């Protein structure tokens, strides 16, 4: 690991220099394995947040208080430590660029990570694919990649970002202030006539709700790809 980037109070990105890496697709994940001195091992999956074009690999990890692996990764591991991982894994929840269809990305909490890989990939290849991100966080300080998203959204290349803060909003907050609902989706999403491809990633209740609402709005279920992040185990 070359550096640890503290993204929010509970979330950090591990930036890793890979001795052997044959590339990945935006949206894929890796399995991280940690081994104690007595040989005990634990494994967890984490999404890759960096673009395929980035020189180093980044995984973004949310610290779960009752977790076994995440408190170690974001609390104990220091620059220079080795991290054992396997991947990239997964061939479905991926975006390769070059797809003409507009992109709709919906994230909850640390579910932004694989979608950020897509947004970074889109910027790195100079894609103009019309892209909308709807990102739900608890509070402004919980928004991961805030500055980078602001910068990318101001580039005027077809990316728009809408935030909703579900628990706490700063004074004068101009974004949404509630859980994602059908009225919010109706304002943010592409018309179904534009046949967007949709990626939804976050905690199970958010993913279930958003995917169901989109189907009810008439979107083709086959165009909606989901990845559920349970706050399980960790």
């Amino acid at each position, binding site marked *: 690991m070359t550096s640890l980037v503290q993204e929010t109070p509970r979330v950090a990105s591990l930036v890793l220099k890979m001795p052997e890496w044959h590339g990945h697709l935006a949206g894929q994940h890796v399995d991280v394995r940690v081994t104690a001195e007595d040989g005990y091992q634990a494994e*967890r999956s984490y999404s890759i947040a960096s673009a395929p074009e980035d020189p180093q690999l980044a995984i973004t990890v949310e610290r779960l208080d009752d977790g*076994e692996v995440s408190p170690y990764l974001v609390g104990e591991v220091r620059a220079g430590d080795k991290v054992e991982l396997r991947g990239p*894994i997964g061939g479905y929840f991926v975006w390769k660029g070059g797809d003409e269809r507009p992109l709709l990305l919906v994230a909850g909490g640390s579910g932004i990570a694989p979608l950020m890989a897509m947004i970074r990939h889109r910027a790195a290849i100079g894609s103009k694919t019309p892209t909308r991100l709807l990102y739900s966080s608890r509070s402004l300080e919980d928004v991961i990649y805030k500055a980078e998203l602001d910068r990318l959204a101001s580039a005027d290349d077809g990316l728009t970002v809408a935030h909703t803060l579900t628990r706490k909003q700063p004074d004068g907050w101009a974004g949404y202030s509630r859980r994602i609902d059908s009225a919010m989706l109706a304002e943010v999403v592409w018309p179904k006539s534009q046949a967007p491809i949709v990626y939804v990633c976050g905690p199970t209740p958010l993913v279930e709700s958003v995917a169901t609402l989109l*189907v009810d709005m008439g979107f083709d*279920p086959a165009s909606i790809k989901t990845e559920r992040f349970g706050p399980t185990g960790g």
Partner: protein
Amino acid sequence: MGFISRGFRGRRRDTVSSSRLPPGQYIVTDYPVLSAGPTPRIPLTDWKFVIEGEIDTPKSWTWEEFRKLPTEQVTKDIHCVTKWSKFDTGWTGVSVDTLLEGVETAAEFTVQSSYGGYTTNLPLEDLTGGKAWIVYEFDGEPLHPEHGGPARMLVPHLYFWKSAKWIRAIKLVNQDEPGFWEVNGYNNYGDPWREQRYWGD
């Protein structure tokens, strides 16, 4: 491969459960949900289950007919490829042996297909001999759509992606046909005790 992770001690070392826990797995007490797309909602009046493919006459059941079949209650440990395992899950359903009664086939492989388009493949012998069920109750309650209701496959000796949610059909085939995850990087067989998670395992 493998080195000590400086400072990692780990927490869960219950030796009683470790003999029940496949390598790389950890125990959960809740029931995580994993699927690749929206949850299909299937009205029971539209529900139908079929056995098709290499079979003289395809067999099919409506929900009403299916629920008249002899049922079994089983308690099983389940193992998801995303690393969680859940012990002692209780299910009610119909054994695949019951569904295949009287079926003569030369097929050695099967493909499960779901409402919503999901598929997964298995050798026929992994569905017979008391190893697989179509279940419609979880812990005594109707199976929730998120978890595959109205009815899903239960093949507990393999990773849980081999147990299709929202099951619609079992196709008997002569040649193995890799399914949804199997063409997207996941192992063709999926034995948790041999940690067959991905291609090349």
